[in-house]
C-alpha cells in the first residue's frame, strides 16, 4: 500500500496532527522524509504530533526518518508525539527502545 500523509486540525486538542497511512519501507522512506521535512520546515517551532493509527507497517528505514525528525525537534527544544500506533508498530518502537525517546500516546488495539 502506498504511503499517504495528511494534516488534520484537531480543534478539541487545539493542535494539528500529521496522519500517516499505508506502509513505510525502503521504497518510500525517502518520500516520507521529504514530506515530513517540508511540514517541519513550516511548523518547526511547535511540537509534532504524528498519528499512526492508519499506518499498517514500518521498518527500520521508516524509524530512521522519524528519529531524524525527532533530533531536529529536540535541538529546538520541542517534542515529537507518536499517537495511536497499531500493536505491530508499537512493538517495533518498544524493542528498539524508541518508545523511551518518543512520547507514545493512545491505547494499543
Amino acid at each position, binding site marked *: 500500500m502506498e504511503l499517504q500523509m495528511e494534516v488534520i486540525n484537531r480543534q478539541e486538542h487545539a493542535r494539528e496532527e500529521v496522519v500517516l497511512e499505508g*506502509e513505510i*519501507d*525502503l*521504497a518510500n522512506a525517502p518520500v516520507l522524509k521529504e514530506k515530513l521535512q517540508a511540514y517541519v520546515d513550516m511548523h518547526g517551532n511547535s511540537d509534532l504530533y504524528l498519528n499512526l493509527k492508519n499506518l499498517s*507497517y514500518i*521498518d*527500520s*528505514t521508516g*524509524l*530512521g*526518518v522519524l*528519529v*531524524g525528525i*525527532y*533530533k531536529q525537534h*529536540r535541538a529546538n527544544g520541542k517534542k515529537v508525539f507518536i499517537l495511536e500506533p497499531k*500493536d*505491530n508498530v508499537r*512493538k*517495533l518502537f518498544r*524493542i*528498539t*527502545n*524508541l518508545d*523511551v*525517546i518518543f512520547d507514545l500516546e493512545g491505547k494499543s488495539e
Partner: protein
Amino acid sequence: MSDRHTVDGILDNISMSLPSKPEYVSVARLTASAIANQMGFNIEEIEDIKIALSEASSNAIRYSCQDVFQVSFVIKRDSLCILIEDKGKGFVQAECREPKIGEAEEGGLGRFIIRSLMDEVQFDTEPGQGTLVRMLKRLEGDK
C-alpha cells in the same frame, strides 16, 4: 502438509531471485506473509517475519551493490527458515557496531531488529564473499 513424505523434514522449498531495487522489498514481504499465513503462524508472528525479511532484504539492496539477491523459504512442519543471500561486498562482522538502542540512532537497527524478532538468526559474510542471512521462526505450538 504434515502427512506428506519429506526429506529432512522439509515440506517445501521456495526460491526467488529479486532485483536489488527498493520496490521489491514489499514483494519479498508479501510472499513471506502468504507463506507464513498458510503455515498457521499467528498475526503477530507473521508481522515479525515480514519485518525481519524486510530488514534483511533492505540491507542486501543497500549494501551488496549487486543487481539481484536471492530469497528462499524452507518450510517444515514446525518452522519456517528464510535465507537471504547476495553475492555482493560482504562485511567484517566484528567491525559492525551494534546500535545504542534507545539513543536516537537513525541507522544500524536492521540486524538488531532481526535478532529480536526471529528465534534463530545467523549471518555468514566476509568481505568480497557476499552475505547469507539465515533466520528461523518456529510455530508457536512447537516452541
